[in-house]
């Protein structure tokens, strides 16, 4: 991990633990996100990726461990805290209000009020301005939707995903987090989400991308955080490893050796089955 020392990580976590009753969803996990990078987080189902992301974005409070934002120790009391620090998340189940329209969802929890006493006294929301700004964000990200007054429940899976992504990108000031944004999408729609991620990175924002899809990860990630059984198993560059090696690390067949250049076989039979041998 020689690169990790050059810049202060945007988000850094050490020794995170989160238990749900008898289940330990996060089991002493570390995490590092560098400025401007796309960091892929991969791992088996149930490895604890979503739980890790929820801990980093204030959606759950970890039982143990420390989170630093730009070097400063921080404790989030709820998702609104993380949002106030510019961290925006596209959760796996999207967290949209189905019966509400696209513009309302974009501004959910931070509605714009009308100027003057209509807003300050009568608390009236500014529907027109929210629609206009939502349209501007959508256009900025080149997301095409027929009408912003459509309820989200009338949209296709890909369009819903686009709304959730657009919402996160529109508000993010320091980090965008996406939990399996392409899992429910077809090839074309997945490609559009990957394009979106590139555009976000080109704006200079770091992106955390949780994904199962190895080709996507290798296409877009600057570094890969491999999560296994509640903790970080490895933090590697995609250029140093093949896809099958990374999958083998994910499943525990291989482990990364001390200086992160190569791998050692942890499980001889599994490694053979996966067709990977170091060197």
């Amino acid at each position: 991990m020689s690169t990790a020392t050059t810049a202060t990580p945007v988000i850094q976590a050490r020794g995170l633990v989160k238990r749900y009753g008898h289940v330990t969803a996060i089991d002493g996990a570390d995490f590092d996100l560098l400025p401007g990078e796309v960091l892929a987080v991969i791992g088996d189902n149930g490895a604890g990726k979503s739980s890790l992301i929820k801990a980093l974005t204030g959606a759950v409070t970890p039982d143990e461990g420390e989170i630093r934002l730009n070097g400063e120790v921080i404790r989030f009391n709820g998702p609104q805290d993380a949002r106030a620090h510019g961290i925006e998340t596209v959760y796996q189940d999207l967290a949209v209000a189905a019966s509400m329209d696209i513009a309302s969802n974009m501004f959910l929890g931070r509605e714009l009020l009308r100027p003057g006493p209509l807003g300050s006294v009568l608390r009236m929301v500014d529907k027109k301005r929210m629609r206009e700004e939502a349209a501007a964000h959508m256009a900025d990200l080149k997301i095409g939707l027929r009408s912003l007054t459509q309820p989200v429940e009338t949209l296709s899976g890909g369009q819903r995903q686009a709304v959730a992504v657009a919402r996160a990108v529109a508000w993010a000031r320091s980090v965008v987090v996406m939990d399996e944004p392409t899992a429910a999408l077809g090839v074309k729609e997945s490609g559009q989400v990957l394009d979106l991620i590139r555009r976000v990175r080109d704006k200079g924002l770091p992106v955390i991308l949780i994904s199962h899809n190895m080709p996507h990860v290798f296409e877009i990630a600057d570094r890969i955080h491999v999560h296994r059984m509640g903790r970080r198993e490895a933090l590697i560059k995609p250029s140093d490893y093949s896809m099958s090696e990374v999958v083998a690390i994910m499943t525990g067949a291989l482990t990364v050796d001390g200086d992160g250049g190569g791998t050692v076989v942890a499980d001889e039979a599994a490694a053979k089955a996966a067709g990977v041998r170091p060197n």
Partner: protein
Amino acid sequence: MTTSTVPYGNLTGPSRLRRLATAPIAGPLAALVLACAFFSLMTDQFLSGGNFSLIIQQVMVVGALAVGQTLIILTAGIDLSCGAVMAFGSIMIAKMAAEGTVPPLVAVALGLAVCAGFGLLNGLLVKLIPLPPFIVTLGMLNVAFALTHIYSNEQTVSDLPRALTFLGETFPLGDTDVTYGSLLALGLFGLFAYLLSSTSWGRHVYALGNSPEAARLNGIRTGRLTIGLYAIAGLVYGVAALLLISRTGVGDPQAGQTDNLDSITAVVLGGTSLFGGRGSVLGSLIGALIVGVFRNGLQLMGVASIYQTLITGVLVILAVTVDQISRKRIR
């Protein structure tokens, strides 16, 4: 600009007329208009200002309860205690004011506060324990019912000061006499229609009803919001208590015993979904009017009141069926 970009020619969405036709209250509104047309044809007395004023007086108590009930049902909850809380509030206000323990307006303020307190207690139990709203409000129904009978000694309270019966007085509107209470009830609907449709609080209520977890992840403080909604609903039941007193002119411990179900009927007929997140108080007003129009029209036609109940029951089942089917179609 790439070719994949679709221009935003249609920011405001479908035309006003189209939106009205597909609005969730279009169905209930059509049912109300059809019912009015039907009864106008069947009886001569139906279509008159006086009769409409009467219908509004008959539905305003249940209508006011339906405002609070709408708030709870929008969160996918249900409030069985509303009628009993109203009855307790009305007895308390009537008795304190009639006995002169406190000035009438202080009695009113205390009554409203106690009703809001019942609601607050409902909300705390639903959110903090947490318990299903159905069970909590069923328990509270019995508590409030018993307290009403204990506090009143089963006695009807009469000889109320004018401050309490004032809402039952009328003013002329054209050739019709309208009660001040009807105005208050309509004002209540207007106020909550505004709050729900045009404030961020209202948007948070809908988001909460759609998905509490999504609302939470969007930074909405769902606990506070839920508890507040139950307390506000309680306060609204207090206003219903004032309307009840003004309508009957007495404090009656037997009042309001079926009003909880009637308010749910009005809300459901008005197109508000029992699954939460969709509906409106305007719909509930229409729902309450549908019940009132049917009762009144059938009565004018000389149909026995038990058939009125029968038809209301059929209407409710119809409305819930429509809700369920339209939800399935969306998925």
